[in-house]
């Protein structure tokens, strides 16, 4: 900084600020969608938000990793609802689902059931469910093939009839008793009734009906005709596995029964719309042989033998035995069917087939799944498989739908309160600081002018949503912002009281005020950052805007208020007591100066 300290080149600073402003607004208008509107929270625009808390079966805190997996799973379920603009984010141990607007988003409230991962044998498929349901030639061909396959598979493995019978008896039990008493995934048994309580009668009926057809014991029947009929009936239920197919059975399938299920959408992470529109494949699956708790670990890595990525799975000892048994059976089946149509095993999550790799040999111990995986696909699959070893249940903490009317009212109230707050502060400062108050008001406006684009940009880049608490934070920050200027102006007054001219008071006051402003703002910033990082719920929005305003307030004080004050120090008009608001202190200052002068005179005289 140019000496002496506290003296600056005001125009340069103002120019820097102007540049910042131009860049910010440039980004707002010429990047993204170019709309200068911040991303609004559910409470300001209406919509549905659900807060789910993830709980582990033993009550310990779920790890970050498993929470991320859980988030991905919930995300997938939300995508399955086919509502636009939905978001799933982690907030502490909570998973927050937000669905703007008021569509069929209320279903988002029913997504809290425990995710269950199961390994099922593929009896038939993959095939195009639409074609089967349509009942064309293709269908019968496919069905014949399937029936044949079913025969083969049952013929090839000794234990097949047994398992079929066992599941058959379970099926009767399951369909007659409805959801409540049905056996659920092992890991989350305790939570299952909770989830069922949450469902209304109609949903329960839908689930029972879907189970009846899609988990019919005949799906694994020895009799090709029976099986074919069962598959046909079941596939109709799938509605062609269309993107907006809202599976009533999702997460509610019974593990001991066969199942007809759709392939999970290829872009479950939910990026490109086109890929999701492609028809999904369907599978006819045997009962669950291994469940997710039998997976010890799973990772993704580069395939050392060829290009691409692979997924590695390790099982627990119990899982290992079952896996070995299952793969032996499937390998045998593959040999019978030939290499062009190998037997497959399906990883089923939430009643959707995540992946169905083919099995050509018996595997015991570590298993690797290779294929056309991209890095992300491999990682996602590994995450899902890993998730199975730690089944989380979700408790609905806060489920709300805000009507657009209420959102609009809140937004309006926030804006009005903001304007009134700003006006009151401006009036008070004009009254108290007179001409300097104008400077203060200008600084407030400038701060608001940079806060706004930053919020818009943050909404675009990192998905920051401005909610009601955030608006409150902004309004409350008006005080902090104005306060920096008050510290500075009071400091100037101190200097003037000591007999300095406005002009010479400014740089000296600045040096001291700067220190105070920095330390005081630091305290508010610490508070905001700590709150933002540690607190959950609406606090985040509040802490964020308070922190943001404080940081930007510093920018404005340094780049605008101080330079303007330096310029103003040269104005003659500030010597006008009525306008400057400095009357009393100037009197005092003049007095001090006069006394000094007198003393000087005396000293010279002596």
């Amino acid at each position, binding site marked *: 900084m140019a*000496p002496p*300290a506290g003296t600056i080149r005001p125009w340069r600073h103002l120019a820097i600020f102007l540049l910042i402003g131009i860049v910010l607004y440039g980004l707002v208008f010429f990047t993204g969608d170019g709309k200068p509107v911040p991303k609004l929270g559910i*409470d300001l625009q*209406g919509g549905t938000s659900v*807060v789910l808390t993830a709980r582990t079966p033993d009550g310990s805190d779920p790890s970050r990793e498993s929470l991320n997996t859980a988030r991905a799973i919930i995300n997938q379920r939300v995508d399955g609802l086919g509502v636009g603009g939905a978001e799933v984010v982690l907030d502490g141990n*909570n998973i927050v689902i937000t669905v703007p607007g008021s569509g069929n988003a209320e279903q988002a*409230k*029913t997504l809290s059931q425990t995710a269950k991962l199961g390994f099922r044998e593929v009896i038939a498929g993959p095939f195009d469910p639409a074609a089967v349901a349509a009942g064309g030639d293709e269908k019968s061909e496919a069905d014949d093939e399937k029936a044949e396959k079913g025969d083969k598979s049952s013929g090839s493995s000794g234990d097949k009839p047994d398992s079929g019978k066992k599941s058959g008896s379970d099926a009767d039990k399951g369909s007659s008793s409805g959801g409540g008493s049905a056996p659920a995934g092992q890991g989350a048994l305790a939570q299952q009734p909770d989830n069922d309580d949450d469902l*209304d009668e109609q*949903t329960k009926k839908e689930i029972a009906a879907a189970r009846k057809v899609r988990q019919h014991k005949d799906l694994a029947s020895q009799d090709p005709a029976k099986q074919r009929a069962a598959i046909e009936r079941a596939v109709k239920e799938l509605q062609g596995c269309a993107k907006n197919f809202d599976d009533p059975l999702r997460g509610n399938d019974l593990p001991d029964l066969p199942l007809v299920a759709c392939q999970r959408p290829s872009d479950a992470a939910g990026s490109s719309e086109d890929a999701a529109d492609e028809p999904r494949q369907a599978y006819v699956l045997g009962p669950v042989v291994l469940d997710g708790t039998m997976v010890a670990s799973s990772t993704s890595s580069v395939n050392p033998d060829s290009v691409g990525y692979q997924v590695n799975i390790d099982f627990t000892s119990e899982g290992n035995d079952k896996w070995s048994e299952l793969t032996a059976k499937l390998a045998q089946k593959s040999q019978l069917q030939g290499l062009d149509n190998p037997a497959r095993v399906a990883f089923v999550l939430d009643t959707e087939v995540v992946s169905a790799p083919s099995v050509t040999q018996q595997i015991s111990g570590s298993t690797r799944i290779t294929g056309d995986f991209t890095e992300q696909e491999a990682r996602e699959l590994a995450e899902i498989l890993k998730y199975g070893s730690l089944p989380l249940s979700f408790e609905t*903490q*806060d*489920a*709300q*739908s*805000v*009507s657009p*009317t209420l959102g609009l*009212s809140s937004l309006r*109230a926030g804006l009005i*309160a903001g304007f009134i707050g*700003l006006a009151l*502060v401006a009036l008070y400062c004009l009254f*108290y600081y007179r001409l300097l108050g104008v400077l203060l008001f200008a600084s407030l406006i400038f701060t608001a002018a940079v806060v706004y684009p930053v919020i818009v940009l943050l909404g675009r880049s990192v998905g920051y949503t401005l909610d*009601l*608490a955030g608006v*409150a934070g902004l*309004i*409350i920050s*008006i*005080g*902090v912002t104005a306060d920096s200027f*008050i510290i500075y102006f*009071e*400091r100037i007054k*101190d*200097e003037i009281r*000591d007999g300095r001219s406005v002009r010479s008071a400014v740089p000296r*006051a600045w*040096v001291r005020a700067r220190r*105070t402003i920095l*330390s*005081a703002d*630091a*305290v*508010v910033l*610490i*508070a905001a950052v*700590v*709150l933002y990082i*540690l*607190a*959950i*719920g*609406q*606090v985040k929005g*509040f802490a964020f805007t308070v922190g943001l305003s404080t940081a930007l307030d510093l920018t404005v004080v340094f780049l605008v208020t101080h330079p303007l004050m330096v310029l103003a120090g040269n104005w003659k008009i500030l010597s006008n007591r009525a306008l400057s608001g400095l009357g009393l202190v100037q009197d*005092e200052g003049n007095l001090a100066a006069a006394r000094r002068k007198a003393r*000087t005179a005396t*000293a010279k005289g002596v």
Partner: protein
Amino acid sequence: MADEKTYSLATPIDQEPKKHSVFARLYMGTGAFNIVGRRKIWYSATVVLLLVCIGSMIFRGFNPSIEFVGGTKIQLPAVSAEGRLDVDRVEEVFADTLGKDPVAVQEVGSGPDATIDIRSETLTNAEVAKLKDALYEQLQPLGTDGEPDRAAISDRALSGSWGGEITEQAIIALVVFLALVGLFLAFYFERWMAVSALLALGFDLTTTAGVYSLVGFEVTPSTVIGLLTILGFSLYDTVVVFDKIKENSKNLLDLTRMTFPEAANLAVNQVLMRSINTSLVTLLPVLALLVIGVGMLGAGTLKDLALVMSVGTVAGTVSSVLLATPLLVDFKMRYPEYREHERRVMERRAQTQQRKGQLNEQISVDEETLEAEMRRERAYAAASSVPGRTLRRIDQQRVAGKEARRSGRGSGRPTGKPTGKRRR
């Protein structure tokens, strides 16, 4: 020697204090309010207030919101296709549909934004859907476009643990914040300033919580959050006061001009108007928020945050002026060097007084010595109270030199400006 507790607190330069109005005195910040000297009063008041607050918290407890106790809340616009809705009518629909009574139904807010709030025990998703259907069919609430709309009905179901979870996180945040800020203050100021500031903060928290308990305001998660923000704002005030004290008491022990309590009191007075301004300026938007929040929306985040902030801001201002500084003074005066210094100041003051008395008796003697003495004293005073001593030495000299040249005054006699040389 004067009574130890009454300090003469005239500003160093203004040797003949003029009587100004209270406002003018505030505005001038000339140290006319003896705040530190009366600290016994503030302490007693604080203790009484704290006892009342803590007592109320223990015996009366709080009025927890739905987030803490769990339940379902339904909100619908008070304006329907058939005109304004009646609270009783809504209650009736509720009872008819679900076969049980709601906990409370009330109309909140005003004008087009008025809503009817229904609170009930926790309803299942199915019950909520059924109720919303019934409310929509029978009451026809209007949506944003002025047409009856089912989506105009908001609902919220809360498990009782949500508020607790938020509070738990908030308490963790509080502890971390206190630790960080304690470190920051100890580093930036000094240990006792940090302790005093945190004690004052404790006062703010307790009184704000106490007011909530006493008045019976509803405690929501937003309240808890607002309470945390107060911490920042309240400390902000204290930081500004302490900054001034730090400045005023620089090299204080090397001079016999002022005692530490006097310096602290002067500092408080100098920033008093600023403290009041700050609080007002913080309060004005908060009050706007409160009025609009309650007036338009009736309840919710805006009201909760604004209410807790207004209570906390007032407590914060009061505590930083009346509590933090006196506490700091008492902590400091436990050190022998500060007490010794105070004794020296008093001694010297008595001497001067005595000499003045002698002078009055034999006026002609030694006028020059006295003049020199007075000059030196003024120089000390100026050096200890005028800002700018934190400049780097080189800058300091440059500034001083430049100004001296500009003003045409030579150096060699105290000008009330720092010269960068410490005079002893």
